[in-house]
């Protein structure tokens, strides 16, 4: 179990910096089509923001609620990615060929662009959940030791 950090400096800084990190993660995620970045890096930054809140405010703080809740989304990112592929197959094409996404009023290139955005969201969600999940796994045994000691 990770307890809240004592230092008031770190607590204040965390309160200020975590939203900035999260917004930067979203920016990197959605700007990946126009500059460096993309689903993987964006997901890692989003996950790192949540890990930071767990490290600073502890497991049980209300600020870490988001990090605890997102663990229920394990596998959803993969589902989104494969689901986009499945939608392409429903549209009558190959698996993950975004040109066959059945969206009226979009030309082929825009469909591909949309498919890239959707799959990037899937990758980002998967990576973020995995990062938070590994941190929770690494601090899981301490919960057990504490319950034995106390």
């Amino acid at each position, binding site marked *: 179990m990770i307890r809240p950090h004592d230092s008031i400096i770190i607590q204040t800084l965390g309160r200020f910096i975590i939203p900035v990190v999260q917004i930067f993660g979203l920016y990197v995620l959605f700007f990946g089509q126009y500059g460096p970045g993309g689903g993987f890096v964006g997901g890692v930054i989003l996950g790192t923001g949540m890990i930071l809140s767990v490290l600073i405010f502890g497991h049980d703080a209300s600020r870490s609620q988001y990090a605890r809740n997102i663990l229920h989304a394990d596998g959803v990112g993969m589902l989104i990615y494969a689901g986009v592929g499945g939608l392409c197959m429903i549209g009558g094409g190959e698996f993950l060929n975004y040109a066959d996404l059945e969206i009226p009023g979009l030309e082929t290139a825009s469909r591909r662009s949309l498919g890239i955005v959707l799959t990037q969201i899937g990758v980002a969600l*998967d990576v973020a959940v995995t990062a938070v999940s590994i*941190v929770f796994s690494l601090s899981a045994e301490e919960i057990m030791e504490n319950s034995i000691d106390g």
Partner: protein
Amino acid sequence: MIFSYEIILLLLLLITAAGAIMVKDLMSSVLLLGSYSFFLALVWAWTGAVDVAFVEAVVGAGLATVLFLLTLFRTAPKDTRLRRPLPSLITLIVFPLVGVLLLYAASDLPGYGDPNSPASVHVSPTYLEQSYQDSHTLNVVTSVLMDYRSLDTMVETVVIFASGIACALLLRRHG
């Protein structure tokens, strides 16, 4: 003098990598590894691979350092001293030989940025020319990863998912 920047970066890489191995305290070793990742990210950015540099800086210096430190707090809180035996005679003979062999082989590689090298005449020109018309994506790296090579990226996602599940299975047995 771009050349001297390169030399300085590579020297820093060597120093931090050697330091991460030689240092006795595991905590300093982890932090040196993080700085090694930062210098490596600078090298990637210098060679023009900005996406790789981004991933290296975020994952290598950020996330991996946090995971290493959390592991360190769990496994070895007190005794962090390591005992390293001297390298054996075979190691001293074989490793320089392998190094010489690799240097010899490296002389056959195409030059840096050579437009006629096999890597830049096969499919890369098609990607660079067709990317925007095909998918309205300016960043060619993203369109290669997410569109042209989409299935590979999906299986990578499966690997990441599996690693998270494996960590949970191994570490949360009693939870």
